[in-house]
């Protein structure tokens, strides 16, 4: 009988009915660290935007936990201000009024048993009053050193335990440790309290439209995949450049550095998605399997001095503004060896990629903010032109622009109009309107909704995290033994050592 309830089957849904959006079921989101930067700038606005797009259930609650002497309405005002300032969609009084009815605040320290008992009773009340149905997501937007005390408290107070037909999930942010050992520890801490399917690691890059489009580009077209291998690809450059310095985040950044902050998670994930084979389907498990195969096949160069580079930004000018050097930033010791720029060369030891280097680089205070994956092709084996005709021609490239200005660029040679034969590089751009910018959901909206729906394809699992550290640890150890990194000019494209690193291979960095 179609009108009877069977779990997992809803008569009003059908795979053919593609226009029907999925709405999260009854649930609450509990944020630890609501007073923090991430919560204000991203999480609370994303929750409002989801509500405004009609994707949150009527039975939704948002619970804040922090060491503030606040009442529910004080917290509601904080959320309101954050939403007003940072939400992507228009502010609607009715949506706000409805959302704010489910807002609660619990005051306390992480070590305070009574506070967690209060949290438990608050969630219980919400189940009764708002019908959140025992489904709760705990978002740990706090420094990772507190993960163990918070998860311990969640366990002790019975909050991590889900009853039949309801779920408890935990969401954590990077950094997922600072090396393999600490990552394992962290995974163990979480794993003792939550089953691995209930742990969601946020890598907001994976929620971005273009990153998902990378999979569409590769696996829905016939045009690119035949070229996507060592027969045609010369090398791959994956860049994430920031124009800002470390700002006020010295406490977080010192001792972490560019490689741990960006390469371990974002760049290695982008590399895995670029290099992986076609998954059998796009469910979480199949995609992860392919990514893991790539990570397992990654090989480091033997000579790390020659094939990696690091640096610290010097005082100077960035985009017309005088800026401090890294060592002059507040709360950074003058002898800090933390790198603010990191570039590494990796190879993937499999048939598809043998001999194709993947160059990964990231840095702060570079010329502009840009992230991209550039697949650079080999030169044509023979050019039936005079050498002077093709002087201006470099390699063909396919560039996936992750941000800003998300889209795809193809670079190829074209004849310059006129009677002479002159071939030069031209580019062809595709950007899907503004839909990748203003109107497309923030990565956080998508990821939070996926957490609430329990859909996991976009979240890295602990195996991947550990494999990434296995790749990075030897490089980090090597750097640690080499003292202070060289300086590089603020507002440029990184240290001279990084240019030398590519020059040694007869290549050069693209100017993104």
């Amino acid at each position, binding site marked *: *009988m*179609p*009108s*009877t*309830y069977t*779990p997992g089957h*809803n*008569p*009003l*849904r*059908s795979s*053919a*009915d*593609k*226009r*029907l*959006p999925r*709405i999260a*079921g*009854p649930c609450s989101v509990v944020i630890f660290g609501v007073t923090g930067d991430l919560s204000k700038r991203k999480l609370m606005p994303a929750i409002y935007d989801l*509500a*405004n797009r*009609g994707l949150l*259930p*009527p*039975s939704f609650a948002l619970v804040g936990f922090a060491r503030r002497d606040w009442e529910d309405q004080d917290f509601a005002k904080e959320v309101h201000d954050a939403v007003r300032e940072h939400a992507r969609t228009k502010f*609607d009084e*009715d*949506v706000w*009024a*409805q959302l704010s*009815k489910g807002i609660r605040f619990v005051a306390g320290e992480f070590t305070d048993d009574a506070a967690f008992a209060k949290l438990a009773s608050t969630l219980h009340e919400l189940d009764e009053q*708002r*019908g959140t*149905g025992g489904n709760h997501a705990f978002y740990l937007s706090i420094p990772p050193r507190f993960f163990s005390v918070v998860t311990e408290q969640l366990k002790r107070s019975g909050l991590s335990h889900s009853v039949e*037909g309801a779920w408890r999930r935990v969401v954590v942010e990077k950094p997922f440790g600072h090396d393999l050992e600490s990552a394992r520890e962290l995974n163990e801490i979480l794993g003792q309290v939550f089953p691995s399917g209930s742990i969601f690691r946020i890598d907001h890059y994976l929620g971005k439209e273009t990153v998902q489009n990378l999979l569409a580009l590769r696996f829905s077209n016939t045009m690119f995949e035949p070229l996507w291998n060592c027969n045609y690809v010369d090398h791959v450059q994956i860049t994430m450049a920031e124009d800002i310095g470390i700002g006020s985040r010295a406490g977080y950044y010192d001792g972490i550095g560019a490689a741990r902050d960006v390469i371990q998670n974002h760049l290695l994930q982008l590399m895995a998605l670029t290099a992986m084979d076609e998954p059998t389907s796009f469910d979480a498990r199949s995609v992860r399997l392919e990514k893991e195969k790539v990570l397992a096949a990654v090989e480091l160069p033997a000579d790390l001095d020659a094939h990696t580079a690091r640096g610290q930004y010097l005082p100077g000018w960035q985009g017309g503004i005088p800026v401090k050097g890294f060592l002059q930033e507040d709360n950074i010791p003058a002898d800090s060896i933390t790198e603010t720029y990191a570039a590494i060369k990796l190879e993937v030891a499999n048939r598809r990629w043998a001999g194709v280097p993947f160059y990964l680089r990231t840095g702060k205070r570079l010329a502009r903010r840009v992230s991209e994956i550039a697949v650079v092709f080999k030169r044509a084996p023979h050019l039936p032109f005079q050498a002077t005709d093709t002087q201006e021609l470099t390699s063909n490239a396919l560039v996936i622009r992750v941000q800003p200005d998300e889209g795809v660029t193809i670079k190829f040679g074209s004849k310059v109009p006129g009677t002479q034969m002159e071939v030069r590089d031209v580019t062809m*751009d*595709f*950007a*899907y*309107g*503004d*839909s990748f910018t*203003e*109107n497309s959901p923030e990565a956080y909206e998508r990821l939070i909704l996926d957490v609430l729906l329990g859909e996991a394809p976009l979240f890295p699992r602990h195996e991947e995290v550990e494999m990434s550290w296995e790749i990075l640890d030897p490089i980090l150890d090597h750097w640690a033994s080499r003292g202070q990194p060289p300086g590089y000019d603020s507002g440029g494209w990184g240290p001279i050592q990084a240019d030398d690193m590519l020059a040694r291979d007869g290549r050069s960095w693209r100017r993104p």
Partner: protein
Amino acid sequence: MTLRLESTNASDIASAISAERHRKGATATGMVMTLVIVADEEYQADATQAAASSAGDHPCRILTVIPRPGRGEPQLDAGISVGDSEGPGELVRLRLRNSLAEHPASVVLPLLLSDTPVVAWWPAGHPADLATDPIGRLASRRIVDTTSTDAFVSALIERKAHLATGDTDLSWTRLTPWRAALAATLDQPYEPITEAVVYSEAIPAAPLMRTWLEWRLGVPVTYLDSEGPAINQIILRTTGGAITITRPTGHMATVERNGIAVKELFLPRRSVKDLISEELSRLDPDDTYEETMSRLDITRLEPDNDGAADQDDTAGEQTENTTEGP
């Protein structure tokens, strides 16, 4: 800025678009489709504007065809704007004067973007058979709005009779938030459903909703007249009580299960811009709409009570909605 060409032809228009594009620095943005709007002078401005603002989501070339039948010599006048304040895409208003009004395809065909999908939209009033219409034939998606017609009952009958793959009705698009809200209520456990009731003004969306619910739930669905606005209440009766969604003002709705736990839900009536943008985001045929139309019972397009507007209140819903005007 709008470039005006009078007494022109398609080839001159095409050259003017491309010149205009080069002058703007050869806009890098690729166009993903051509949208052809067919509307009378009275409706073209609003529709073109709605489409132009959704071109932010879907960069496209918009061709607004405005038939101006009359007696004199056939004449084509065009207004062209490329990537300006009206929107990021290319926008061409085509006034087809006198006997040219009967030959719109001759103007539109040369102006379609190469090898990308074509969508046709009749914002108010449309030919009976879309798929064989000269403009409709060029398009893979054909969008009409039966809500904009005065006699919607006959409009639905006509649509059903001529239904072809790729047809869409914005009356159906309007139902998406309602359908999503209903589906969400059934993601949670419920007792077997025995019947359902749809309260609505007399609009085409109401019989479509009734048909979809009957098809999906396999239970009888009553459609009762109300003062709306639009659909203002839907009740799913189960052996354990009722699941009721009530939307008194066309904005916020309440969800009730078994007369308790009234919760609010954002269920806004949407602008034509939002509707068209939703339609353009999927260019494949809407199978669910087509199936619903094929199941539509043309003898049951009107309310089961003829205008008595007495809502059933055994489910505990507020009856005051019935007294509220649209």
